[in-house]
């Protein structure tokens, strides 16, 4: 089937199988391998991207459901010379060890901060990242990074 999606601001028209998953389209058709597939059972959150302004697990979205949508992946938020404030905060706070969960953590955290009603505290961040697993168990620094980034994102 034919789908058209806007990924990181670029319009893409693709012919994909009816049972294609958004995660696979991003990775295999568009080469955006920053979106990771960890558990492939909608639990770990490594595949989180933004679809029409909401953080979603792209391994549990059919490509057809994303037809017409605007998708932002980890590649779309910053680059090595100009990191997104959330990426900078992860680097600053040593919020990654192996790095596998990091793209999903960052995409979830950005959505969490953008939708926050006021200042997030540690509990809010831990609740908000419930759907993202870090198997290095480096949660403390991830939470620190998100708390630090919320101020940077507001002033950015």
């Amino acid at each position: 089937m034919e789908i058209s999606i806007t990924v990181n601001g670029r319009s893409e028209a693709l012919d994909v199988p009816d049972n294609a998953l958004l995660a696979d389209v991003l990775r295999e058709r568009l080469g955006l391998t920053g979106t990771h597939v960890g558990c492939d059972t909608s639990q770990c959150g490594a595949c989180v991207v933004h679809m029409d302004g909401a953080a979603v697990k792209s391994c549990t979205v059919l490509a057809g459901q994303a037809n017409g949508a605007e998708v932002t992946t980890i590649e779309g938020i910053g680059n090595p010379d100009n990191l997104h404030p959330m990426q900078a905060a992860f680097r600053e706070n040593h919020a990654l060890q192996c790095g596998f969960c990091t793209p999903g953590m960052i995409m979830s955290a950005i959505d969490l901060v953008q939708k926050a009603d006021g200042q997030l505290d540690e509990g809010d961040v831990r609740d908000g990242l419930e759907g993202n697993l870090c198997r290095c168990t480096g949660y403390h620094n991830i939470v620190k990074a998100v708390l630090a980034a919320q101020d940077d994102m507001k002033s950015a």
Partner: protein
Amino acid sequence: MYQFNYHRPASLDEAASLMAGADDGTYLSGGMTLIPTLKQRLAAPSDVIDLGGIGALSGITDNGNTISVGAMTRHAEVAASNAIPALADLAGQIGDAHVRNRGTIGGSIANSDPAADYPAAVVALDSTIHTTERSIAGGDFFQGLFETALDEGEIITSVEFTKPTSAAYAKFPNPASRYAVVGVFVARCGDATCVGVTGAGPCAFRWSELEAELAKSFSASAVANAALDHSEFNADIHASAEFRGNLVRVMAERAVASLT
């Protein structure tokens, strides 16, 4: 996943005719259960009919005494609403943030998962399930494990809830999946109190014995006086039937205590 034909109709009529023409079709709403099921090859529909393109199915309307929640309304939207605070609180406890951004009320109740949250509210609140064919009372909707009153091809369009005087939901979540091991929704509607239980039985049910006790005395201590037969409760690696029976009492006490 097995192969299937994907469709995204723009209207309910188109959806129904696609279903009628399919060998073995299935409707897709948020996909938070169906897509993992397809990925595990536990289902092999010939056609997946996505209801996500039918805009009229989404949104919350405040009608004064009732609210109508469109079947495709995402959990996150209900969680952010304020017409029935206990319902918003329940929606905010479903799964994780990403699940709440995709999962829908219609998909949740149509599935009648014994551990889903919404069914507790559907049976406890005075509610009506509106479909393409008819209106079904919330108390008649859940009929068993993954079984509802829906007929083949019938589509839920909205769920209408009467606003309670006050209500509360107390849940013991599975720490990994965040499904309800047990969840209890207590709703006070004038003088009457209704208690909905999810997670414990094959599907959500009313705990009428507790309702009778709460009518005499609305207090957490009334829970101890209410009979509860746990012999047919669910038993799995997460909790025995006996443990679920105890959790129903504890969650009921918490919900009632929060309203007193």
